[in-house]
């Protein structure tokens, strides 16, 4: 136990002295700071020149050709209103001239009307996010509906009222609000994913480095392999938690400092409106999920003689983890977090930290299911821990080529 403490202290200290670790943490906190202060910075910039700029800003020119179309006046008026950001120009040029202007950039785009409900949209490079045709469609649709109504005898006021009727609605969610919970679940799952992969690899590299530098020769004679392994894993878990705490803590701090600037942004507000019990579940699943992978990464590190070997030998484990992550992510974006696959995944120890947490956050899961999942996970962590420690005991003494699984199992029986 004393050795475990010594190892834990030493490993933790080396994390805090590690320039990459410190640098990454500082960079993340700085990034969060920039993000959280963003609206404040923006308003500071805006307040100076907003008035002068607004008058001049014209995003570009839109050419409109309405030749031979009835109601041309109304169409022109409606376009000018719909594209108020742009300079809407009416032209009687030939099609080829219009095309020319679009190609050489004089005009952002061109709308050539063929009839009251038909047009051609000309643009040089069609952007992925180009939504102008949708706007044009709506404008023309409205115009058409208006003119139909007017011609069938309704007054203009009646027509406008009929077209712009406001429907009031209210949603009462009796379980979880997926839209609201989506973002923070996403952030949490992603954080879990990143931390496990990053720290898992660090644990494996750490062990392999000790082996390749032959510090292991001395270590195994001074400390028990189980103390060594768990000292490392617990140290990296603590380091990971501290890093997350710093990042999320600074996010909460900066959010509260800038709270007034974020008001009205539902999405961000929802992230910081996480219920406490979810945070506790997050912590439980984080620690257990971290452990089950970190001990396996430790075992993998012990089997490698060179640091380079880790990349190949940790591949199956990483694939397993990524597969679990994919299932969770697809289910989340589908909004179907209670599918059979997700239910199964929320009991399998290697996927349950992500799957069960997602289900808790985005759906209503009976408490006993959560309990079963956690118990299974704890049991597996212990089982995998003992198994990995055995591999570690054997692995640290093996040099040369990475041994085959059969050989390791045989040696483990002996040890």
């Amino acid at each position: 136990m004393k050795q475990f403490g010594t190892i834990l202290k030493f490993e933790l200290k080396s994390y805090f002295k590690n320039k990459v670790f410190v640098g990454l943490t500082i960079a993340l906190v700085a990034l969060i700071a920039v993000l959280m202060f963003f609206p404040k910075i923006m308003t500071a910039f805006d307040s100076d020149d907003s008035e002068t700029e607004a008058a001049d800003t014209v995003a570009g020119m839109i050419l409109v050709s309405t030749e031979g179309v009835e109601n041309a006046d109304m169409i022109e008026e409606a376009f000018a209103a719909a594209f108020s950001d742009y300079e809407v120009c009416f032209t009687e040029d030939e099609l080829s001239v219009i095309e020319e202007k679009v190609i050489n950039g004089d005009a952002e785009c061109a709308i050539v009307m063929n009839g009251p409900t038909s047009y051609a949209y000309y643009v040089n490079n069609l952007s992925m996010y180009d939504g102008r045709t949708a706007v044009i469609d709506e404008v023309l649709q409205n115009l058409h509906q208006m003119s139909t109504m007017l011609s069938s005898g309704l007054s203009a006021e009646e027509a406008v009222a009929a077209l712009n009727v406001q429907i009031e609605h209210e949603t009462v969610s009796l379980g979880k609000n997926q839209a609201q919970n989506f973002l923070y679940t996403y952030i949490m799952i992603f954080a879990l994913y990143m931390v496990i992969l990053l720290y898992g690899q660090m644990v494996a590299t750490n062990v392999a480095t000790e082996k390749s530098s032959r510090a292991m020769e001395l270590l195994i004679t001074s400390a028990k392999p189980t103390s060594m392994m768990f000292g490392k894993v617990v140290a990296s878990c603590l380091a990971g938690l501290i890093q997350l705490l710093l990042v999320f803590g600074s996010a909460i701090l900066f959010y509260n400092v800038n709270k007034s600037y974020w008001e009205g942004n539902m999405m961000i507000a929802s992230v910081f409106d996480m219920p406490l019990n979810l945070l506790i579940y997050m912590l439980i699943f984080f620690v257990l999920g971290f452990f089950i992978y970190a001990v396996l990464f430790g075992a993998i590190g012990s089997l490698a003689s060179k640091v380079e070997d880790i990349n190949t030998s940790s591949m199956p484990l990483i694939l397993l983890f990524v597969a679990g992550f994919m299932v969770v992510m697809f289910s989340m974006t589908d909004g179907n977090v209670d599918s059979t696959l997700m239910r199964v995944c929320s009991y399998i120890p290697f996927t349950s930290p992500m799957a069960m947490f997602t289900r808790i956050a985005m759906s209503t899961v009976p408490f006993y299911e959560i309990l079963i999942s956690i118990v299974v996970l704890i049991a597996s962590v212990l089982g995998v821990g003992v198994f990995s420690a055995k591999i570690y005991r054997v692995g640290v003494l093996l040099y040369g080529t990475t041994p085959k699984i059969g050989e390791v199992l045989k040696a483990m029986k002996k040890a």
Partner: protein
Amino acid sequence: MKLELKDIKKSFGEKEVLKGISFLAESGKAFGLLGRNGAGKTTSIRILMNVFGADSGEVFMDGKKIDYKKVKIGYLPEERGLYPKKKIIDQLVYFAELNGMKYKDAVKSIDYWLDRLGMMEHRNKRLDTLSKGNQQKIQLITALAHNPEIVILDEPFSGLDPVNAMLLKDVVKEEISKGKIVLFSSHQMNYIEEFCDKIAILNGGNIVLQGEITEIKRNYVRDKLIVRSQELDKIREYLGADCFMNEAGELVVQLKAAEEKQKVMKDLTEKYDIDEIKVFEPSLNDIFVEYAGEQN
């Protein structure tokens, strides 16, 4: 103190590495564990240090089963290596703490050893900034800092310059005189001969020879003669197949029995012009080659 290994057997998979070895090392004396590469030295040391258990057999300390919680062991592994990127003092303290020392005592003891080995100026440097020989001295501190009862030195002299080898010799002699059990493993027989009173030669998982060096030498069958003469060719002709030339240009005469030596010596001195004739005294190197040479 007496450290005794009794009938230790160990196999890895199909391979039987130790086939029942026993030896006894005493405090105040250095014990040499010899053997060719792969003879089972490191495995014996690891069993002795409880890195893994033996398949059968026991390790005893003063007649009782060894209690690893009480007996401290210092180890200088043959494969040297510590943390190259870490500060020297930090890792030395780490290893001393792992070996059961308190932080303050560890620092005190390490400072003593850094000073003793002339490494004080490197105390706060990173290990990989040091030369190989100096790194080795740092590693030696990990074996000695926690004041262990048993010191195991595996090839301690490899890679050291003569001055550092001298320093290490003094340190080892000090440790022996402090009444510690010192276990040596080396291929450099001159060092073994200098330090060790007792040796055991491992070959193919068995101890093929063990005992006091003087005793071993005395018991060595004295059935070879060394002859220096101007008339070696004639002598060779006379003796036929029983003799051969060694590297020093001397004639080695293999006798049929040790008792013959006086007769043959007399015979040769009477017949030929002999410069020198003596009974062959083996060096430890000769004994090692003879016993460890053939793989069984």
